């Protein structure tokens, strides 16, 4: 059924269709309508789940961890300060190998207070052992939640996943979304049947103390899980396509990159706008393309190497910044390319922090800059875009 809905409702429908059994959540702008909708689904009986009204995001994740350990499929949603408050228990969820799925409505961190989009909150969780999917449309949000359960619950993976939805730009924007039939989702995503769970009668301690002589082997296994997630993401998406007729681009979506001289690589909703820019520049005969990092964890190193070896210039637009370094995605891209025999010129653009709009015009200027840099080289490797006081980039 096609329906007009916000990204937040798409998240709520994703969790409902996946038959989440325990939902523990705490309200934060702009995530609230996700949990309001889920609370409504539970109260009307449309979703057979337990809604745990916790007193903080930390408790939301801790409750999900406990419930998931007991074999329940769990879901939660948060944003910015809520996500960063969870940081400790995010690590716990992955270390405990629990395939929890969560929506993060990506929002800037304070101060300055801001309820608007950027990716600082999500990027700051990149080392927590969670799969991270950046979405560009509400349809993708809904579909990725369903896929994420299937990916994460598979035996070789057993790690949690974060579905990242840009604050307001997706969370509060209404778009047509196809709501799949429950029966089709049920056939695609069977009930959660973990290999291990906490049960009375089985006196086992979950998450116990491990000495240095054994700790690394557990971490190594988590690494293998994340590594296995790469192929699993691709496989599950192909299965999804067979059932629902849609796909979203694997780990790295390429848009009109064939014969492109320069490519802009980015993540999240800005990629959707950039596709329009690519179309318009291509129609004028300018050979540009777009690469969208859909999975930030696991990072698509191989895909980026393959792309990098066939383009002359690769710009990276980060909607976050790692102070003292560069955009996190840029650093990852550069690291991927270092050992390639043939490498493109790269440059990092920091844009759209705290909800600053990234317009088609800005993206076009970024493309022009990449072209220029590719031709004549550039001294500045990282550039902040659309910042008042920086005349080159200001309006």
């Amino acid at each position, binding site marked *: 059924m096609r329906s*007009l809905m916000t990204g937040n409702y798409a998240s709520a429908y994703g969790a409902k269709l996946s038959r989440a059994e325990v939902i523990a959540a705490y309200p934060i*702008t*702009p995530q609230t309508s996700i949990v309001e909708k889920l609370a409504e689904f539970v109260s009307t009986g449309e979703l057979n789940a337990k809604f745990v009204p916790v007193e903080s995001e930390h408790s939301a994740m801790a409750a999900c961890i406990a419930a998931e350990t007991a074999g329940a499929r769990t879901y939660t949603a948060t944003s910015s300060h809520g996500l960063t408050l969870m940081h400790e228990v995010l690590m716990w969820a992955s270390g405990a190998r629990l395939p929890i799925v969560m929506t993060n409505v990506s929002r800037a961190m304070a101060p300055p207070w801001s*309820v*608007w989009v950027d990716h600082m909150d999500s990027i700051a969780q990149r080392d927590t052992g969670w799969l991270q999917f950046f979405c*560009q*449309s509400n349809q993708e949000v809904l579909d990725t939640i369903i896929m994420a359960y299937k990916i994460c619950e598979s035996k070789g993976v057993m790690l949690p996943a974060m579905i990242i939805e*840009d*604050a*307001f*730009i*997706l969370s*509060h*924007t*209404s*778009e*047509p979304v196809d709501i799949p039939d429950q029966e089709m989702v049920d056939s695609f995503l069977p009930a959660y049947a973990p290999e291990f769970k906490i049960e009375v009668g089985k006196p086992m301690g979950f998450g116990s103390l491990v000495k240095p002589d054994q700790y690394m082997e557990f971490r190594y296994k988590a690494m293998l899980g994340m590594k296995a997630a790469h192929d699993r993401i691709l496989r599950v998406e192909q299965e999804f396509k067979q059932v629902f007729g849609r796909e979203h681009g694997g780990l790295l979506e390429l848009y009109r990159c064939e014969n492109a001289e320069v490519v802009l690589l980015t993540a999240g*909703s*800005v990629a*959707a*706008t950039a*596709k*329009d820019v690519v179309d318009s520049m291509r129609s004028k005969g300018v050979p540009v393309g777009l690469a969208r990092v859909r999975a930030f964890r696991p990072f698509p190193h191989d895909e980026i190497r393959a792309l990098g070896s066939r383009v002359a210039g690769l710009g990276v637009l980060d909607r976050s910044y790692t102070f003292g370094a560069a955009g996190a995605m840029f650093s990852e891209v550069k690291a991927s390319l270092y050992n390639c025999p043939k490498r493109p010129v790269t440059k990092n653009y920091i844009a759209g922090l705290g*909800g600053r*709009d*990234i*317009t*088609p015009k800005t993206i076009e200027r970024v493309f022009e800059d990449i072209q220029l840099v590719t031709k004549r080289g550039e001294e500045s490797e990282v550039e902040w875009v659309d910042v008042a006081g920086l005349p080159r980039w200001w309006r």
Partner: protein
Amino acid sequence: MGFEVSAFPFFGVERRGAPVTAYARIDDKPIRIKSSIYEPDYVVVLDNSLLRGVDVLEGLKPQGRALINYPDGRKLEGLDKRFRYFVLDATSIAAAHGIGSQTAPIVNTAMMGGFVKMCDIISLDAMLESIRQNAPVKEEENVSAAKEAYERTKEVQP
């Protein structure tokens, strides 16, 4: 049926009563662009008190159209001649149909009827059906308000 849409509010933290802005795009192909709208084809003003103090027509394309909720019998004056104006007494219509309260009628559906008249791209029947399906309460009252609004919307010279 046949248009793609994308609708979003300006994402503010304003409390009840403060002016708010919302945007919509309508297209016959899927809409990907996520940035704000700076050069609209149409502007819809739900509360004419905004005509004082807020540049509601900022960015409107030349010959772009504005629909303004404006009381009958008062003349709309002193507006930019580059644009076309449509007026509609949505407040009275909504109140007459019992939508919202008498002191604070909810004008949205009446304005939607007016928008159909102004834009010439959406059929009235499609709009009325959409209102019928989506109005949370008083479906028929909303439908008849939109219908009346459609009929009473008229273009004026500023």
